């Protein structure tokens, strides 16, 4: 443990600002406090992410403060979760203005995001359990925000039940771990000589328990129900849920990496997550509600994140989890823009510019191979360079090959270059920040890689084949199954939101 006075002040400052903004949110709960003071609350709320950013930039070694662990991963996760929380709360100031549960909403959101943050920086397993439990509870209450609405109540109840199961499984796994190793401190539990005390069958069991506990918040098959039903929650709550909470699995496995490496349980993880990727993508393809498409996409993305974990690419998984979180939060917050204005152009009707497409293929191959060579050429990078090459080709065709005239191609090329530069920059900087903190797991076995490639390519091929056989019975059956699996449970659908018609007043009154 390092005891450096330059750094000890940062965690302290961090806890002080957390406490201050927590107090402000409790203060805001009182009806007598004028509601426009919410802006000061937002101001205070922006302090913790600033301190976390500072911590991330200034800190380059691990500091333990009591039961808390401050390393670059903790700082980064804290920054991420707190920023999402801040954005969403700022957004809600106007978006939920006039809501019956306005004050309660801010309090719940603050509690949930803070508990989530604390879960990822705690080194004590008991603390982690408590904080994670509070996060799940907070999330359930947020889904239940409009409790007058029976659909919301039911959705929250079913999500809450699943969360409780997930939490209890996690509890069992953690107690088992602590009992066998005789330690509650995560960093000590994970030390090599302590792990060695674990017999391999116990280790496998613990791994399986952890996997199942994490399948539930990540909405992996067969536990996708709660996420599909939680579309009833107000848009900003969905943003927090999809950005900051569903990715817990990836973060937990990264934290627990040593106990997790090179285990048979990973095969299980690979198979189920692989299926979830296909299922999620399928749901996204067939459903027509904007938010339901986003839910499908989240299931698929979380499946991919867990595949990355299973392949030992923890760094890639964390990067994916964070960027996906920001991506999904943005898409949810702009859910109001999803109305079709019938002007989206389609380049499919135009003739294929062969020369440009061939150039794209060559370029994509070069990108893929170049990436593979620079990143070591083994294990997970094979998959990631494959995806990179494919996406490169895809983007090239959409932006450049089908670009309209010189202007169009020039603009397309600029977009592509900008995206590529940003991608490289973000990956490089996150890599340099995290590579010391995050263990890279053992290189996965060859069959695992082949399985993932088979899954992704097979899925794509089947998709293409089906898309051309739209009138076949096979397509109809798969289509209907995907629709069916993506539909909400029958108890959480109501044809008209009748709860709204109650207890109204006219102007002036009830201010």
């Amino acid at each position: 443990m390092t005891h450096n006075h330059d750094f000890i002040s940062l965690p302290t400052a961090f806890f002080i600002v957390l406490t201050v903004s927590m107090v402000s949110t409790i203060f805001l709960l009182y009806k007598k406090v004028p509601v426009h003071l919410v802006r000061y609350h937002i101001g205070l709320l922006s302090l913790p992410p600033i301190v976390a950013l500072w911590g991330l930039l200034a800190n380059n070694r691990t500091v333990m403060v009591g039961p808390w662990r401050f390393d670059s991963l903790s700082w980064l996760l804290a920054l991420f979760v707190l920023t999402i929380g801040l954005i969403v709360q700022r957004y809600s100031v106007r978006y939920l203005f006039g809501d019956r549960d306005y004050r309660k909403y801010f309090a719940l959101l603050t509690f949930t995001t803070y508990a989530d943050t604390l879960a990822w920086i705690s080194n004590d397993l008991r603390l982690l359990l408590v904080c994670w439990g509070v996060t799940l509870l907070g999330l359930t209450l947020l889904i239940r925000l409009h409790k007058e609405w029976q659909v919301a109540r039911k959705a929250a109840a079913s999500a809450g039940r699943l969360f409780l199961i997930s939490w209890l499984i996690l509890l069992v796994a953690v107690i088992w771990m602590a009992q066998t190793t005789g330690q509650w401190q995560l960093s000590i539990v994970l030390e090599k000589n302590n792990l060695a005390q674990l017999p391999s069958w116990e280790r496998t069991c613990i791994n399986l328990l952890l996997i199942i506990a994490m399948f539930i918040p990540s909405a992996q098959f067969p536990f996708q129900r709660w996420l599909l039903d939680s579309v009833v929650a107000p848009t900003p709550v969905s943003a927090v849920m999809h950005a900051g909470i569903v990715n817990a699995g990836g973060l937990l496995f990264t934290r627990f990496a040593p106990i997790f490496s090179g285990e048979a349980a990973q095969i299980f993880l690979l198979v189920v997550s692989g299926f979830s990727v296909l299922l999620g993508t399928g749901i996204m393809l067939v459903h027509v509600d904007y938010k339901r498409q986003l839910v499908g996409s989240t299931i698929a993305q979380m499946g991919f994140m867990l595949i990355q974990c299973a392949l030992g690419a923890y760094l890639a998984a964390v990067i994916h989890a964070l960027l996906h979180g920001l991506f999904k939060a943005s898409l949810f917050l702009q859910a109001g823009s999803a109305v079709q204005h019938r002007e989206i152009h389609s380049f499919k009707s135009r003739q294929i510019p062969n020369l440009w497409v061939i150039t794209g293929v060559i370029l994509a191959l070069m990108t893929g191979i170049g990436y593979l060579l620079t990143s070591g050429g083994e294990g997970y990078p094979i998959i990631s360079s494959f995806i990179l090459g494919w996406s490169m080709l895809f983007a090239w065709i959409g932006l450049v090959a089908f670009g309209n005239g010189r202007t169009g191609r020039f603009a397309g090329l600029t977009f592509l270059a900008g995206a590529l530069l940003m991608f490289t920059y973000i990956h490089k900087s996150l890599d340099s920040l995290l590579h010391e903190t995050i263990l890279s797991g053992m290189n996965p076995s060859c069959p695992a890689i082949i399985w993932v490639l088979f899954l992704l390519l097979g899925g794509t091929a089947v998709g293409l084949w089906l898309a051309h056989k739209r009138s076949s019975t096979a397509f109809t059956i798969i289509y209907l199954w995907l629709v069916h699996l993506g539909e909400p449970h029958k108890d959480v659908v109501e044809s008209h939101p009748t709860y709204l018609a109650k207890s109204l007043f006219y102007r002036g009154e009830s201010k």
Partner: protein
Amino acid sequence: MTTTLARPLNWENETEERGLTIHEIVKAASEIIAPLGPISQFAARSPWASLEGQSFEQMVRRFKDRCDIELLPNDSVLQSAWNHGEMDVEFLEEGLQLWLEQHDFELSHTDAVQFCRTALTQGPPSSELTALPEVKSLAKRLSDFNFHLHTRKTVKPLSQCFEQKEGDGKFRDLNRHMIKWCKLFLDESQAVWSMPNREQGFYQAWKRMACLDPALSLEARKQIKHLPNEADIALVEALSQLGISDSETQEYLEAHLLALPGWAGMMLWRTQQQIKDSSLLTDYLAIRISMELILLKPHFPLSKQGREEQVRLEPLIAAWIHWGNVPIDKWHQLSDVEQKARLNLARQFDKIVRNRLWLEAWEKTYEKQLMEQILSKQELVSEPNKPSLAQFVFCIDVRSEPFRRKLEQTEGVETFGAAGFYGLPIETCKLEQKHSHPSLPVMSKPQFKVMEYLPESQYKPFHERIEAVHSLKGTFKSMKHNLLASLLLPEVSGPWLSMQTLARTFIPRSTGRTFKKLLDTWVMKPDVRLTLDRMEQSKSELPIGFSEEEKVQYVEQALITMGLTDHFAPLVVICGHGSRSINNPYAASLDCGACGGTSSAFNARVLAELCNFPHVRQSLKARGILIPEETIFAAAEHITTLDELHWEYLPKLSAKAEEAFTCIQAVLPQVSEQASAERISKLPNLKFNRKNPKEEAERHSEDWSEIRPEWGLAGNAAFVIGERSLTEECNLEGRVFLHNYNWIKDKNGSLLASIIAGPATVSQWINLQYYASAVAPHYYGSGNKATQTVTAGIGVMQGNASDLLSGLPWQSVMQSDETIYHAPIRLLVVIQAPTEYVERLLKHDRTFQQKVDNGWLRLASIDPEGNWKSWS
């Protein structure tokens, strides 16, 4: 209102079904719902446009009986309007007396008045009172003594009756299945895997697929397979198997349409758009009722429901105990006749009557206040003798009034009001858009098409630039939907998106403006031209542009309608209006209602350009409208979210017009600031930025988290047809539609008739749409914006799935979850004309007379001597 004589509980459907084909019955049944178009062209529609043959109260009863929704403002709303000083107790008393006069009870007048008066002002009896054993035994005794009051039971879907009896969610299941199939079938968002076989029609596609649907039991799937191949046969067969008699068929279909009025309304809208979809609603009902049959089959035979229902006497007795001061023991002393009379009174003076009387008192109070305001300001009005500098023509929209009031403070500025489509029955097609928009009130069909175009040399580079922007969006979307690319997309676009998210969240105003500026700089939209001259083309489509004769005719008509036929100022500005908001599925609901939910700037520009054609002016001269050569017509767009005027079309100005233009430009910033200050103070705010209303207005328009970018037409209450001098000095608080009208120039009353048939109907529809959204926010409004999801690219649903929602969202009529902002009162039409004019109008226009008689709007007039007359 004088139509309450109709016996309320005996609403009968008198259509003679025998001999009608099923298509005709479906068509007749469809009048109960309103067509619902896509949300991107949000149309102002009355939900009850086809029901105006009945009185408003009858409609309210009908919906109460059938769907259990209350379509009158509820007690707490009325109570708080009362507390707010918007109700005069005199009018309530007046309404009560009238009601008692119209109903004959064998009861002393004092007793009846006392009972009713208390019932109006005090809360209802508690449920415990109704449940008292004494009350129950009395009720039993009375009913034994032949006090049978019967009421005809409304026809409800069998699955609904079954659900109520058995608690098994059959009706909900049926709704859920229908929602699913409708949204998959109607999808326009180009889901990558869209529903197969859609081109074969709804019923065929459903039948081919539903027999494979894993959401249904095997038995059900087998039955679907054996359904008839034709929708109409299937419908008839399903109805007969369910045991629906011919005479009940229409009512039964109506009940099913009312279960999901939004999806059914969208089907109805589609049937009106294209011939190939003309049987869509039959398909919908065939699927729905076949499905109902299949869901209910395992539970056959169903217990028969009676056609009549006995009225429970307990609540009536409790009402007399509570309001009439007639305790149980006193009942025994009453004679049979009196007991019967009392029960009858309690039954007839029910909640609907009480709330209707309250509503009318509210409306009459508003009328009185408006009358006092208008009449008291009459002396102040000075005749404008000075030649004016500039004349502005605005849309009748209620948001024009505050802006006009501020603008008129400038010396030499005159303003006019006319419906914002300016009488042009056109379909507009903007540059780079494949589809055209019918830019006129939804009840009429377009007759011409006007397109924007550019010369080829300008078009090509512009097209390339705009395609580049689209290709970015298109590529993003197609990557999102590709299995492999979608896995990388978050990592590539995540950083960019999060930068945008941060900026939009913390500095919404500047971010929005910067994005807009960047986009404008890149796109550099050149000045477009319009296809105003007739072009040769195939006969099947709408003619493009106007012939010379048509130009003259439409300009003349427009100028006469807006009352601008002489004393032209050097600069005449035709103003359309549009709104600016982002991340708002309801953006179109804030645009011009007379243009079918889009900005009316296009129509304004078309009219202004037509007015500047020399040959048009020449021909007008021959018809007695002399437009001086120095007069120039320009067009502008009134941005209602920002209170700004943006020049849309500015031709070369004459010297005098130039002078006027400079003067106007100088005052506009001030006008817009004052207008913003007045408007922003009405929006719920957090005291963030009270000092600078202008910036606050800009934020409202650019903030992606803003749930109420503006109030839209909320608060609308009256429609004044008359000279501007009538209302010039009044602050009408943005609640009044203003249409110019000078009866002296309208000897035969045809102008008034056309204003009533067009703009007044549009306003009435807007008014009823807001009314319905405020009183039944869950049924006729579209619920809370925060829990909506856009579906199929055409509309919104609540939560996980729901009916396709119509009407305005909760936040557009409510200032908070508890408090209504929009006063739900019916439109008051005020006509400035001699009494004979109004009489003539009512005599000739039966539809309008029906609206007035049946209480779908209220009518008043002001004669030349300044006497106010109420016609309702």
